[in-house]
């Protein structure tokens, strides 16, 4: 240490240094105090530059400051909860449809149906999105983006294996995969992500719906363990695919959506289940090795199933503390409209998001927009997009206890895939947990 403690000068020097250090670290604190006048916008770290550019325009137009904070998607729910509990300042935030009941019941989100400025967009938003933002009769936000789980394939691999058309049923998926495997084109032709993360429920639900099953019936009771109506066929198919046919790698339990996307883009697989917006980066030769040959097909159907898939949406929510304060609420409404509604008379952000990252929207009129169509046609089939979109349904497991059940369910499915548990046992465990949690609430 270069400070000489034993003399006066040294001690003075130390105090000086501490003072400047305290000063510099107080600066963010001072900044935070001023930020009380600004809008606190909390998101996960996606489309950062797109968001930031739109924010710059917002700040310019309204003369309001926006403090934009982010957390990684994988930690978003956890960090949000800590913030809620600690009453950290957040005004507007991105929310996933799965968490709406949980956060609304906990009193963290405030309904926005009192603001005509926002509700007027409902007419131009598709039903699926509107319904997903409603809970107990109140609406909680405007759509950020909406998309569905798509079935993608590498046309080159299919062609090389002598397959003329993509599979229409899950049985055909098995057959075609075996053919591709035999031809030495791919070790594990189907990429299915089974890591226990936020994405898992979307993958599973897509598989369950296309097999004609459900997790939960209309009354909200668990039916996943029902061999006819439930997820039994689905899980059995996956287990067979991993263990019997060996067309899905046993490493799938390690594979999250991100790694799965990367693996598919490296050309390791012929088929993949991925969020539809991934088509955009997959088609880009700068980022993907299968650029130019990735195509979307309708979700294969199970024996008693259909081409249905799961759709999800994320929305802009207003926090309860913000709603309680008149000024904050008014500012929050402006921000939500700017992003989730129209900015300067146009659906600017939605279009930006679509062209930058390929993310879809909930806005009905944009589907008919020729620009959008032309842009999409550059790399993929717009008709297929629409077709599958119309068959997308929302998850049936969205409830207040979803977060907790999701963990158990995911682990149970993993156990079955790894052979540590039978299919029946895994689903029974999942159903049991669901019913228990339902009873407790």
């Amino acid at each position: 240490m270069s400070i000489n403690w034993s003399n006066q000068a040294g001690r003075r020097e130390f105090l000086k240094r501490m003072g400047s250090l305290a000063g510099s670290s107080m600066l963010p604190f001072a900044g935070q105090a001023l930020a009380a006048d600004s809008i606190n916008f909390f998101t996960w770290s996606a489309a950062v530059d797109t968001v930031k550019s739109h924010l710059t325009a917002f700040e310019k137009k309204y003369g309001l400051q926006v403090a934009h904070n982010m957390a990684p998607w994988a930690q978003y729910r956890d960090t949000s909860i800590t913030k809620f509990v600690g009453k950290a300042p957040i005004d507007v935030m991105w929310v996933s449809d799965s968490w709406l009941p949980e956060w609304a019941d906990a009193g963290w989100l405030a309904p926005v149906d009192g603001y005509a400025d926002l509700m007027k967009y409902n007419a131009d938003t598709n039903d699926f999105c509107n319904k997903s933002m409603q809970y107990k009769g109140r609406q909680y936000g405007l759509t950020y983006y909406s998309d569905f789980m798509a079935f993608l394939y590498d046309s080159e691999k299919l062609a090389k294996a002598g397959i003329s058309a993509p599979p229409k049923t899950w049985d055909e998926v098995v057959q075609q995969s075996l053919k591709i495997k035999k031809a030495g084109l791919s070790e594990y032709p189907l990429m299915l992500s089974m890591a226990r993360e936020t994405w898992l429920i979307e993958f599973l639900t897509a598989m369950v719906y296309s097999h004609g099953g459900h997790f939960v019936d209309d009354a909200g009771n668990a039916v996943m363990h029902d061999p006819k109506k439930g997820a039994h066929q689905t899980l059995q198919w996956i287990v067979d695919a991993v263990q019997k046919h060996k067309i899905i790698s046993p490493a799938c339990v390690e594979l999250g959506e991100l790694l799965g996307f990367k693996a598919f883009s490296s050309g390791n697989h012929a088929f993949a289940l991925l969020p539809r917006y991934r088509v955009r980066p997959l088609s880009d030769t700068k980022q993907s090795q299968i650029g130019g040959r990735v195509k979307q097909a309708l979700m294969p159907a199970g024996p008693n199933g259909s081409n249905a898939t799961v759709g999800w949406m994320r929305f802009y929510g207003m926090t309860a503390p913000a709603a309680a304060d008149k000024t904050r609420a008014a500012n929050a409404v402006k921000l939500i409209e700017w992003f989730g509604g129209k900015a300067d008379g146009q659906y600017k952000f939605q279009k930006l998001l679509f062209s930058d990252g390929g993310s879809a929207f909930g806005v009905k009129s944009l589907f008919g927009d020729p620009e959008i169509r032309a842009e999409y046609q550059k790399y993929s089939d717009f008709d297929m997009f629409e077709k599958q979109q119309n068959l997308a349904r929302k998850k049936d497991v969205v409830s207040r206890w979803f977060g907790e059940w999701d963990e158990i369910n995911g682990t149970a499915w993993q156990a079955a895939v790894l052979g540590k548990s039978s299919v029946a046992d895994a689903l029974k465990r999942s159903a049991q947990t669901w019913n228990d949690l339902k009873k407790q609430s």
Partner: protein
Amino acid sequence: MNAQTRAARKSVHHTVGAYDQKAAMLFLTPMVVVLGVVAVFPVLYSFWISLFDIKLSRPHRTPFVWFDNYARVFQDHMFWDSVTRTVSFTVMSVAAILLVALCMALLLNEEFRGRRFLSAMLLVPWAIPFVANGLMWKWIYDSGYGALNGILYQLGFIDKYLVWLGDPDKTLPLIANAFIWKAVPLPTILLLVTLKSIPSDLYGAAKVDGANVWRRFFHITLPSLKPAFILVMIYETMMAVRHFDLFFILTEGGPADASHVLSWEVYAETFRKLSFGTGAALAYIMALLIFVIAYSVIRTLGNKL
């Protein structure tokens, strides 16, 4: 003569180590204040929370339930499974740490050229942040492109890439390996210092008596190392039981709960299930476990206190 010297003169009549409450209080105050405010309050508050049934998804009803949470934890098979996994992880890690540290200490105890360099490199694993350590090993264990797969494949031990972290049978040992790698330097230093303090005449006398290398090792070296072994064992056990970061970065308790240890259970209960009451109770049970171990440490070094 100023007041300071006068005071010093006065206290000279007492022996050092004598009763001097005032000075002690003065010196201790900063520490007590800081720890009291920043450490004690959260600890007590945490305990308070554990006496309630708090589920964030149901914020309007938070009944006071005495020790119900604790009772419920002990009846939960998930808890006991976590304990089993924690024990398994801890035993694996501590045994390996002792073994590796001993080998390294023995090596560093020898005199040879380059020993200084080895010594300097020793602390590198200890210094790197847990996050970096986790990411580094995650990359090495990667089933698709990892170095572990690569090296085994190139050396011909396997003919195709294997699943590592995703294989529930391999998960805990692999995490333990990452933990051990980072933990080894400190015990090595401790063992080394102890080795150095063994008087060389002991070895000299034994050699004269005709004892060979192995006998010298078993009859002189190992017994002298015993106190150090015990210290390392207890410290590393504490560290292994409460370790969280690697489980968070590498596997998040999976796959299929293969790495769902006690510290992960606390996290999952608090942040995934939003059950703050039971989460706090679990944490206190864990703390009790660690406290018992810590107490043993103090008793071992008891003569100094």
